């Protein structure tokens, strides 16, 4: 059964490996994937541990449905204490790694210690080896994967790797698999680098038994139809995720020039249709591909069309690269976006963090807080395409004062740069914002403020809030499986009911992350995609486990609370701009200047925002300081954590 997959505890310092089953009662409390990882992290890390030290456990997993007949169970999750934020570190990526790990016998790895020399882990049909990585260390993410395949003489091996950025302990280094599948937030690549761990390679041909295979396949046809018929997924399959950036830019929801503007005007060159043309010109008409078991195919393939790197192959760009290397830096040119995307993929760096920090440095340069003396003569002005690409390389290899400081993350860099540089840093809990501008969308502002891994759109964003759905439709979505009788508003500029939407989405996203399914297959960008009511059937047919929608909601809520407990243990407080549920003062003080007529001139209302936080805490069962009440912990079965069941 899928439930036979095990946990391996690997100590890189001693070479000891211990394999344990995952008891059913643990599955019923935390399911798998991110939820179970959070439980493992809370139980296997000590308060205040050094994120780049040997005691920080690195946890790698697939979801409970990974490698089953269910659709799009491709997601790999990685968790540890973050070297970027000092709080929860967590990233999630598509590709083919997690299914291969499941076929090799494992759903979760807990990796501790530091290897004496560069190493990689090889897992093959239940066997685990720690191998020498001296010939792989220093290679880019793609070259490292090909080298591992050659060394193992098996072209079917799937690897999770770090690039030079992870080796250089850039605190927002990615974990990567495939060409562009990036575990790209909170610096899990740096945690791997700190352990001298270049890669985890898997090859598996073990059987995964499905509880009710005929019914599972039959139901999956229905599930696939639900997923592929959604308008949002038809658009994704044609244009990839760039359509999201294009649509958001159209009404004025993207950051430009760090946070000075909320729209990148005349960005026609990086609009999704323009990028799609380049993909078609360089790769032909069938340039969209997908992850394991997914029918959406949102991943574009391209070759760089011009310039010094002309002809280099890569995948994407995701909407995040459009924002990072097009909008934020005010360099809306396709070549810059495609080259920037290529560099961060190969170096293994988070595109969001990289672009955000470069654009922040550009604003500091514009304001005279940084000078050309600091940048070793580099003209770090907005709109300078060459400076953007040069800075990516400098950060990866820690060249020069500014880039080296940025490689340590925004908050430490602000202490290096001094003056009032911190005022301009657009971050939450130490992690830079996505390229989006949330001043006109209070619900989205609440989402980034309270997200468990720092400013983030993939933890609780009510993205369908932007569709102006009628209230009766919102009611239908947001009052199931738990009844909700409060108000909801169709307008994304409103504050009404947004706290509930964020709470609902937080549990929904935790649900898919426990299952191991992609967020494009749930209520993220589309209102008609599967969620709590649909998941029990998929779970039952594939694993035999029976849950009601309400029980799955409870599990998701419990897992989110475990993440909260970890963050509270590591110093989270409500209003602290460095470690709290708080957003930069510019959200409250600087009105938006661009976008649709109803968007311009908006700020987040400080009082209403604070009230939204109060409401959100109330929904979660937290007190006004953001700590769970005794009653809440008891209700969620977390009164005795850490409980060390595993």
């Amino acid at each position: 059964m899928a439930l036979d997959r095990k946990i391996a505890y690997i100590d890189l310092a001693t070479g000891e490996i211990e394999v344990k089953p995952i008891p059913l009662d643990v599955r019923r409390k935390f399911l798998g994937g991110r939820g179970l990882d959070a439980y493992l992290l809370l139980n296997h890390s000590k308060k205040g541990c050094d994120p780049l030290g040997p005691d920080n456990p690195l946890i790698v997993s697939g979801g409970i449905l990974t490698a089953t007949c269910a659709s799009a169970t491709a997601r790999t999750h990685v968790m540890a204490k973050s070297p970027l934020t000092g709080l929860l570190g967590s990233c999630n990526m598509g590709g083919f790694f997690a299914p291969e790990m499941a076929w090799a016998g494992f759903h979760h790895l807990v990796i501790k210690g530091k290897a004496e020399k560069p190493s990689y882990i090889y897992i093959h049909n239940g066997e685990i080896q720690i191998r020498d990585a001296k010939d792989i260390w220093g290679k880019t993410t793609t070259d490292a994967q090909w080298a591992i395949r050659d060394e193992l003489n098996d072209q079917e091996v799937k690897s999770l790797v770090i690039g030079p950025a992870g080796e250089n302990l850039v605190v927002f280094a990615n974990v990567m698999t495939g060409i562009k599948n990036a575990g790209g937030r909170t610096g899990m690549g740096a945690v791997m680098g700190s352990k001298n761990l270049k890669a985890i390679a898997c090859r598996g041909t073990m059987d995964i038994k499905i509880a009710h295979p005929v019914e599972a396949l039959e139901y999956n046809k229905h599930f696939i139809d639900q997923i592929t018929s959604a308008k949002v997924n038809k658009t994704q399959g044609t244009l990839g995720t760039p359509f999201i950036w294009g649509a958001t830019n159209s009404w004025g929801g993207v950051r430009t020039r760090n946070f000075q503007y909320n729209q990148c005007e005349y960005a026609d060159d990086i609009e999704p249709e323009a990028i799609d043309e380049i993909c078609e010109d360089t790769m032909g008409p069938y340039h969209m591909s997908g992850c394991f078991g997914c029918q959406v195919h949102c991943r574009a393939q391209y070759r760089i069309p011009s310039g010094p790197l002309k002809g280099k192959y890569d995948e994407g760009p995701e909407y995040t690269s459009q924002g990072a290397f097009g909008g934020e830096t005010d360099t809306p040119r396709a070549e810059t976006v495609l080259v920037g995307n290529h560099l961060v993929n190969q170096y293994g760096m988070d595109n969001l963090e990289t672009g955000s920090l470069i654009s922040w440095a550009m604003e500091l340069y514009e304001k005279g807080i940084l000078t050309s003396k600091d940048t070793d003569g580099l003209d770090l002005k907005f709109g300078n395409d060459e400076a953007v690409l040069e800075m990516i390389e400098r950060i990866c290899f820690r060249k020069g004062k500014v880039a080296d400081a940025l490689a340590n993350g925004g908050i430490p860099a602000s202490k290096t740069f001094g003056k009032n540089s911190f005022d301009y840093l657009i971050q939450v809990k130490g992690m830079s914002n996505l390229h989006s501008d949330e001043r006109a969308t209070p619900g989205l502002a609440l989402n980034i403020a309270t997200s468990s891994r720092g400013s983030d759109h993939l933890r609780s964003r009510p993205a369908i809030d932007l569709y102006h759905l009628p209230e009766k439709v919102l009611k239908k979505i947001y009052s199931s499986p738990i009844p909700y009788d409060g108000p909801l508003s169709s307008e994304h500029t409103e504050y009404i009911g947004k706290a509930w939407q964020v709470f609902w989405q937080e549990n929904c996203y935790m649900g898919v992350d426990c299952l191991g399914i992609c967020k494009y297959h749930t209520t993220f960008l589309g209102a008609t995609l599967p969620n709590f009511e649909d998941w029990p059937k998929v779970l039952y047919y594939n694993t035999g486990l029976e849950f009601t929608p309400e029980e799955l909601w409870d599990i998701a809520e419990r897992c989110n609370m475990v993440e909260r407990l970890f963050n509270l243990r590591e110093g989270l407080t409500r209003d602290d701009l460095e470690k709290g549920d708080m957003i930069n003062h510019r959200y409250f003080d600087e009105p938006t200047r661009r976008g649709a007529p109803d968007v311009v001139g908006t700020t987040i209302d400080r009082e209403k925002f604070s009230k939204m936080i109060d409401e959100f805490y109330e929904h979660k069962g937290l007190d006004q300081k953001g700590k769970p009440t005794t009653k809440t912990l008891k209700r969620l079965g977390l009164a005795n954590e850490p409980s060390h069941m595993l």
Partner: protein
Amino acid sequence: MAVDTNKLSSAESLSKTRTYGKFRCHNPTCMGRLEPKPGDKHVKCPVCTCEFRVAWIRPDFPRIRGPVWEVNKKLADAAFKKKMEGK
């Protein structure tokens, strides 16, 4: 397990209300329903007068490609000026 495959979930039942060929104006409080004619490259919102460039995912499935910059920029500048005067 008593899996009721005949009962539609909320998400499934909402998909029955899906419409192709239309989209909403990108001006948040306007929410006008826009329905470009097949092949149209531009559409103007009859409610708030914003204009958008249109792209077609397939012949019956349009999307907003982006604003008509000159038009919407002028509307936004006027709105910004008015709002700032009121503050």
